[in-house]
């Protein structure tokens, strides 16, 4: 039996570069950064402009971001009227690294200062890790399988891969997927600083010799995935296809990536096999590229190991985190969206801040300025990498439109 193909028919994003998926790519390609004062906050996002008072009170900021991104994604898939599938055939898989941390911190303050009786009955429903998936299910009437996936900074890509599999196995005909995160909070900041992961300089410059850690961001990216045949029958707009997906784990260290990139490489190789794509067919790699010493080195090694030294040096690699920071559980989703749009626009978006190359890191990281993307085949093919605390490695192989 041939496997069901999975296409992307709609995308939506809220990021530090603005509200909307197109603005994300446009501003990234223009070399603009959404990072200010060492953080990638969604400054242009005002929940009250998009959501009702009740929806705002009853969900954490990470779910607000997801809801607004999902409205855009569903509208761009042509789903703003009646849904094209029976509601119980539409799934929802949403990633988050942490969940409603801001709400948790707030209610913990209430508990400490005013006692147990003052704690809001909405506390757990706000901060539970599945709150975003539940919010999207309720907002859009999605009654198929709906849940959240958590694998720290790899979660956004895990969600998309899981959603694609859900369609391939026939558990759903369409899945609303992606990731959302809003952890610009005192506890998350303090924790990442203690762990030595956050950039003391507040500058995200992946692959640069001076890189000193990641810059935390927030946001959401939502994609509508559909069974390719059903999408074609309804004449859906198609942005691309999930050609391949694979994930592995380092089983090495709580926070550090395995320095040789051995299992990241295994995920890359498996994703290419899953996609039936040869290294020389890859037109672009959207790197995890966190701007940490370890990640950028081990990711480079993994790419070389799988693509081969020559092909690896030839394939443009860039990191969206240079423009918006690290969106943790939303990162993989937002990066997949940017990758799909970049393929559609035939552009290679740049790695910002990369002014002093690290002699050890010798790939083409598309420093500072965007360049045209010239696909080797009829349709461009890209890889999008995501790696997370806990040693999670996920690779998506995405194909763009002709």
């Amino acid at each position: 039996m041939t496997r069901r193909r999975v296409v992307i028919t709609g995308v939506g994003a809220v990021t530090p570069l603005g509200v909307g998926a197109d603005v994300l790519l446009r501003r990234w390609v223009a070399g603009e950064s959404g990072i200010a004062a060492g953080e990638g906050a969604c400054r242009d996002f005002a929940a009250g402009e998009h959501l009702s008072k009740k929806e705002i009170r009853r969900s954490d900021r990470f779910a607000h971001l997801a809801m607004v991104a999902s409205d855009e994604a569903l509208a761009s898939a042509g789903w703003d009227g009646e849904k094209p599938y029976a509601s119980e055939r539409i799934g929802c898989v949403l990633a988050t690294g942490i969940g409603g941390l801001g709400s948790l911190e707030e209610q913990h303050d209430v508990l400490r200062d005013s006692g147990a009786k003052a704690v809001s009955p909405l506390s757990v429903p706000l901060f539970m890790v599945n709150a975003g998936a539940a919010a999207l299910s309720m907002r859009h009437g999605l009654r198929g399988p709906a849940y959240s996936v958590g694998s720290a900074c790899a979660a956004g890509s895990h969600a998309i891969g899981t959603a694609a599999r859900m369609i391939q196995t026939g558990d759903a005909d369409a899945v609303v997927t992606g990731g959302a995160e809003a952890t610009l909070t005192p506890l998350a900041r303090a924790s990442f600083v203690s762990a030595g992961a956050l950039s003391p300089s507040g500058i995200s410059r992946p692959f640069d010799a001076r890189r000193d850690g990641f810059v935390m961001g927030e946001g959401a990216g939502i994609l509508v995935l559909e069974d390719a045949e059903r999408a074609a029958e309804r004449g859906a707009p198609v942005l691309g296809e999930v050609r391949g997906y694979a994930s592995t784990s380092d089983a090495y260290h709580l926070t550090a990536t395995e320095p040789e990139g051995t299992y990241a490489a295994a995920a890359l190789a498996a994703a290419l096999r899953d996609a039936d794509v040869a290294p020389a067919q890859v037109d672009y790699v959207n790197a995890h590229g966190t701007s940490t010493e370890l990640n950028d080195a081990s990711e480079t090694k993994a790419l070389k190991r799988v693509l081969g030294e020559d092909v690896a040096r030839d394939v443009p690699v860039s990191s969206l985190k240079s423009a918006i920071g690290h969106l943790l559980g939303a990162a993989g989703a937002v990066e997949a969206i940017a990758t799909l749009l970049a393929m559609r626009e035939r552009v290679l978006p740049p790695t910002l801040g990369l002014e002093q190359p690290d002699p050890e890191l010798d790939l083409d990281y598309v420093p500072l300025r965007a360049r045209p993307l010239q696909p080797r085949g009829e349709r461009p093919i890209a890889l999008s990498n995501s790696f997370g605390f806990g040693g999670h490695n996920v690779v998506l192989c995405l194909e763009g439109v002709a």
Partner: protein
Amino acid sequence: MPTATPEAVEARIVEALASFGPDIEQVTREATFEELDIDSLDLVELAQIVEDDYGVELKGDDMKNLKTVGDAIDLVVARAS
């Protein structure tokens, strides 16, 4: 703690309910919680506010029988006196 005059209780409850979602003009004595889309979670929050402001403790059983905004106001005024 403010005095639980009927007027004060009404104003406080209307304000609280309006902060949960409905427009303040909708929140009349006759309006039902169902019409206002006020559910059990909202009523727990309302009970917390009432206890904070008037020292009136409302239990789940008290809340279950409330149908309208007026029911809630009357119950709090009665308990506070």
